[in-house]
Structures are given as structure tokens and as C-alpha cells.
């Protein structure tokens, strides 16, 4: 049986690693397909693997959707139901800043290398006339590391995925002040298939969509932090890609 490679956007939460391995095992059995899960440390390594044709199925960051669809002819299959990518812009709880408008040129930002969250975060700073040219960004390894930078006074604002922020302990949250939370609603991760899997795209979509209808599939989804998959068709992806394009500058 031909073996295909599956990968996950490197911004997945560390506590979901086991969940993705279990998902990989589940999908192989449910769809009778041979899959090998490769996890990459960063977006650049993952993009190189995509360019080298080493990715057949990917749970992709929305920032990479345009590249995957337009340059490599990936086909969108499904997206997690109700799980949008939103950004929380935080500052320290004892900071004098009470709104984005209070920020000034030279602001130091703490962020991860999640390209979608960083783009949304930068757009949220625009009302204060801040952009990539008049701010300084410190890239750290995780969203909790972003929170730590803020709590330690090493950066004035931080960009955090809302899902990660919601999972922070009350102790961490109490030391942060939320300046703004994005409510964009239409930017999300999605599972996409390379041309090597196009002929099995419909079958894979059907298998994924049925996961929440049986106990084992439901448990696997819970391990990923979702309740169900939803169809992501070509137009859904095209709409999101157009919207992301408007946010690029």
C-alpha cells in the first residue's frame, strides 16, 4: 500500500501531540490508508517539506492556505467546527496602557512564529499607527512564553492565540490585561490534501465528517480539542485566502 505523509501546522498546542498521533492511527484504520505523521519544529522547515513534495495531507495554518492552494494545488477538505483563529493582544496587568490607542512607536512585542496570529495582531495595532517598521518583535517558542515575556516586563504587548489564552491558568491571566480580542470569525486552520491524494479527497472528507457520529471518532476529536469537522470547500478556502490577502498590508 502506498504510504502518504501527513503533517500538522507547527503552532499546534504541545498537549495535543498525542492527540495528533492518535488521529493519524484512527484515520489510517477508518479510511484504509497508510499515513506517516511528520511533525516539524517550525514553519520554515514545514514549508520546505511542502516544496519538496513530502507532504500529502496537512492541517494547515490559515496563513499558508494561499500558498498551498495557489502554488501547490492543495485541495481543502475539512475545518474544525467553530474553531476560528483569533488573536488576543495583551499587556501586563499593572501596565498604564488601557487600550490599543495608548501604544506608541517603539513598542516591544512578544510573539510566537505563528504567521496568522502575528498578522492579525499587527493589524489590531494599526489604530495606534503601529506596524512592522516602528515596533520591535521578540519571537519566543510558545504562547505561554509570550505571556512570560509580558509578565517579566520584557515586552509591552503580546500576541496570543485566543484558544491558548483561554487555557491559561487564572494566575497567569490575573497578571495580564487584555487590550483587544479579534473577532474575525472567518480565519481558521483546515485539513488540505495534496494532488497525490485528490482522487481520495471525497472519501477522506466523508470519513472525517463522520467521526463525531461514532464514539471512537468522537474521543479522537476530543483529543484534538474539537467537537467535529465541517466541510471546507474550494470557495470557503478562496474566500479566506482573499480575506487574508486584504490583511497582508
Amino acid at each position: 500500500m502506498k504510504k502518504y505523509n501527513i503533517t500538522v501546522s507547527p503552532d499546534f498546542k504541545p498537549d495535543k501531540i498525542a492527540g495528533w498521533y492518535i488521529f493519524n492511527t484512527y484515520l489510517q484504520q477508518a479510511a484504509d490508508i497508510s499515513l506517516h505523521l511528520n511533525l516539524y519544529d517550525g514553519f520554515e522547515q514545514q514549508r520546505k517539506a511542502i516544496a519538496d513534495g513530502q507532504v500529502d495531507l496537512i492541517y494547515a495554518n490559515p496563513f499558508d492556505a494561499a500558498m498551498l492552494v495557489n502554488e501547490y494545488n492543495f485541495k481543502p477538505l475539512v475545518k474544525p467546527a467553530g474553531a476560528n483563529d483569533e488573536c488576543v493582544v495583551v499587556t501586563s496587568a499593572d501596565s498604564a496602557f488601557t487600550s490599543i490607542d495608548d501604544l506608541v512607536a517603539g513598542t516591544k512585542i512578544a510573539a510566537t512564529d505563528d504567521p496568522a496570529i502575528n498578522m492579525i495582531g499587527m493589524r489590531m495595532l494599526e489604530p495606534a499607527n503601529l506596524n512592522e517598521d516602528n515596533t520591535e518583535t521578540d519571537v519566543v517558542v510558545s504562547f505561554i512564553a509570550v505571556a512570560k515575556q509580558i509578565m517579566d516586563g520584557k515586552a509591552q504587548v503580546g500576541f496570543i492565540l485566543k484558544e491558548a489564552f483561554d487555557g491559561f491558568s487564572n494566575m497567569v491571566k490575573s497578571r495580564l490585561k487584555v487590550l483587544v480580542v479579534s473577532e474575525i470569525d472567518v480565519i481558521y486552520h483546515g485539513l488540505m490534501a495534496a494532488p497525490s491524494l485528490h482522487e481520495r479527497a471525497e472519501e477522506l472528507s466523508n470519513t472525517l465528517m463522520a467521526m463525531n457520529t461514532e464514539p471512537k471518532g468522537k474521543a479522537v476529536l476530543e483529543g484534538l480539542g474539537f467537537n467535529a469537522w465541517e466541510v471546507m470547500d474550494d470557495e470557503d478556502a478562496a474566500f479566506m485566502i482573499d480575506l487574508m490577502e486584504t490583511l497582508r498590508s
Partner: protein
Amino acid sequence: MNDMSPTDIVGDYQEHTLELYKHGTRKVYVTDIETPFPEGKLIVSVVDLDGNITHANKAFVEMSGYQENELIGELQSILRHPDMPKAAYADLWQKMAKGEKWHGYVKNLRKDGGFYWVYASIVPNVRNGEIKGYTSVRRKPSREKVEEHIELYKGMKNEEV
């Protein structure tokens, strides 16, 4: 497009007649009441090649003051404010015709005669190599940029006379 209705207007207003490209004239009533841009949100709409709205997100509907069913199928210029200079739209349509992205600061008109400022980005929706419509996304502008554009557009309007 239908004229605005004075009964929908909230507060003291002034009457203007807009000349809409290819779509005749529209009588509008404007007030000095500004609605602040909703924090963290994007205002999103999609129009077809004729400028008719085919999709409007919740923030678009809320900020416009119209009901969704009053917007779908209507021309995007339902939001056209008389303080916007014609040259700003000419630049937009030139970019659109070439299939290029457009950015700009825009003062939009609400159903109740009030207004709101946005920073708008518009991209063509290319499907199978053809432009099928345009997606417009509006973000919260900085107050400094808005003040700059109030003066800039005032000057451009004066040159139209």
C-alpha cells in the same frame, strides 16, 4: 438606487444629491454623528462585478444601520458619503479594473445619516483565472490618519466645484 428616507434619520441633517457612476443620482441626508469602529472586528463584504453586495458579515450589517435583507443585492454605494471625493473612487475602480488590490481611508454613510471611518482593503476574487467579484475588508483606522484624510478629502472636494 432609492433615495434615503428622512424618517430614518436620527438628529439634525443636511440634504445632498450624490451622482453615482453609471447609476444616476441619490438623495442622501447626513448628520454629524459618528459611530466608533467596533474593537477587534473586521467589516467584510463581497460584491459582484456590477457592485451589488452578495455577502455582508454581521459587523457590516450592524455598522451600516440597515437590515441584512436591505443590503444583499443593493449597490455597495449605498454607503457612499457626500464628503468622499470622486477621485478617491476613480482610483479604486482603476485598480479594480486592472485586478489590483486597493487600500484607502473611507468615510461611510449609515442608514440613520451618521457616519463611520474605516481603512478599507479591496481585492479581486479570482476564480479559475477570472475575476468574479471583489472582497472588501474594513479595519479600524488610527485617529491621526482619519484627521489627515478629513483635510485631504475636503481639499479634493473643493477642487471638484
